[in-house]
């Protein structure tokens, strides 16, 4: 690799090697490349822009600290999203433990999703349905629908099988279709 080649011309693997050698601008380039999808993943998982910001930052810093143990069996982006998913799931489980019986503060209306759909707020209604999905279904849905992963790559992120991801995504889609189909 020529020394004068700029960072935005090289692959992630090369940048990862440079970061491992202690070269910080290489990690800056990795963050620049992956921040949009990582933030989208966090945002769709927690449905709160402020929390997604903090969680994305936490994931990116945690990834940097964990790079010495990154084996390279997955692509860097997949590995980063595995960390991000775990950070989000930890956060959501903590949130559920702290307030197990309280309504979601992000929920626009405590009543049935149908009220929001009728009021023309399909977007909010959809987000509420996604928030109410079990976490394993939410993870599969977010990766395959909002981040654009195949079942195979989502399975790599979630460390399960493609069939399991497909099953979870199918249940999530069915729940959405049932709820969103309540009005026509």
């Amino acid at each position, binding site marked *: 690799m020529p*020394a*004068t080649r700029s*960072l935005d011309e090289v692959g992630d693997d090369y940048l990862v090697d*440079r970061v*491992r*050698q*202690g*070269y*910080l*601008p*290489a*990690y*800056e*380039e990795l*963050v*620049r490349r992956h*921040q*949009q999808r*990582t*933030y*989208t993943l966090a*945002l769709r998982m927690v449905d709160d*822009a402020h929390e997604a*910001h903090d969680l*994305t*930052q936490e994931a*990116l*810093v945690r990834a*940097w*600290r964990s790079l010495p143990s990154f084996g390279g069996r997955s692509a860097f982006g997949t590995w980063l999203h595995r960390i991000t998913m775990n950070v989000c799931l930890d956060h959501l489980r903590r949130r559920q433990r702290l307030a197990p019986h309280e309504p979601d503060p992000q929920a626009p209306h405590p009543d*049935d999703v*149908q009220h929001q759909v*009728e009021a023309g707020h*399909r*977007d909010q*209604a*959809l*987000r509420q349905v996604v928030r109410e999905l079990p976490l394993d279904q939410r993870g599969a849905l977010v990766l*395959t*629908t*909002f981040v654009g992963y195949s079942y195979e790559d989502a399975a790599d992120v979630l460390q399960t099988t493609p069939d399991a991801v*497909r099953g979870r*995504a*199918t249940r999530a*889609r*069915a*729940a*959405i*279709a*049932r*709820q*969103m*189909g*309540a*009005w*026509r």
Partner: protein
Amino acid sequence: MSPSRAADDASRGGASPEVAGHRLACGRSGDDVLEQVALGRGDQRDAHQARCVHCQAALTEAGRLWAPVASLAAREETPPPDLLQRVMRAIRELARERRHLTLPGDRGTTRVSADAVARIAQRTAEDVEGVRVAFSQSRAGRLRSSDAVGIAGQHVVVDLAVVTTYGRSIPAVADRTRAAVHAALTTLAGASTVEVNIYVDDVLPAASPGSAPGRR
């Protein structure tokens, strides 16, 4: 269907019996139809679907149900503008704790800071003929010079931005600068391996006699 009718259906769990979780009258799975639409293949109908009214109705219904999801999925979310800055600030803090060139010896360990390495690289480069100014840099431009120095054990990588004198061969100046910085960091700082990346930012006429050192 009216909203109240839809609500009645929903309460019975059968708001959309022809798609999700059900088998179509033709025997096909409603979940598979919904998956086909969700994966963006709603228009790619197989031979059966091309002639089956049940499948065609289900595909249309699935498309309607999935439209808000597809709309949300198509929305490009923009990360907060300060995300990169916040991440790198946090990492620099962590990195600073470990960023020393470590030189083990019989009577103790010597640690050379990234700041010291950056300073040696800069001053050495400025002494190279054909280099007018030199400073270590990062792509963000506003960071400390030591941020452009990577250290792992005794391995050093340094980014240098230089301005060369007009009329000098840039590749030759870059080669001389690289060799001089390599020699300085191995002999003065004790690094075992050194890599020097050089960015030529500008080319300026030779300075007049009497100007500051490093501005030839």
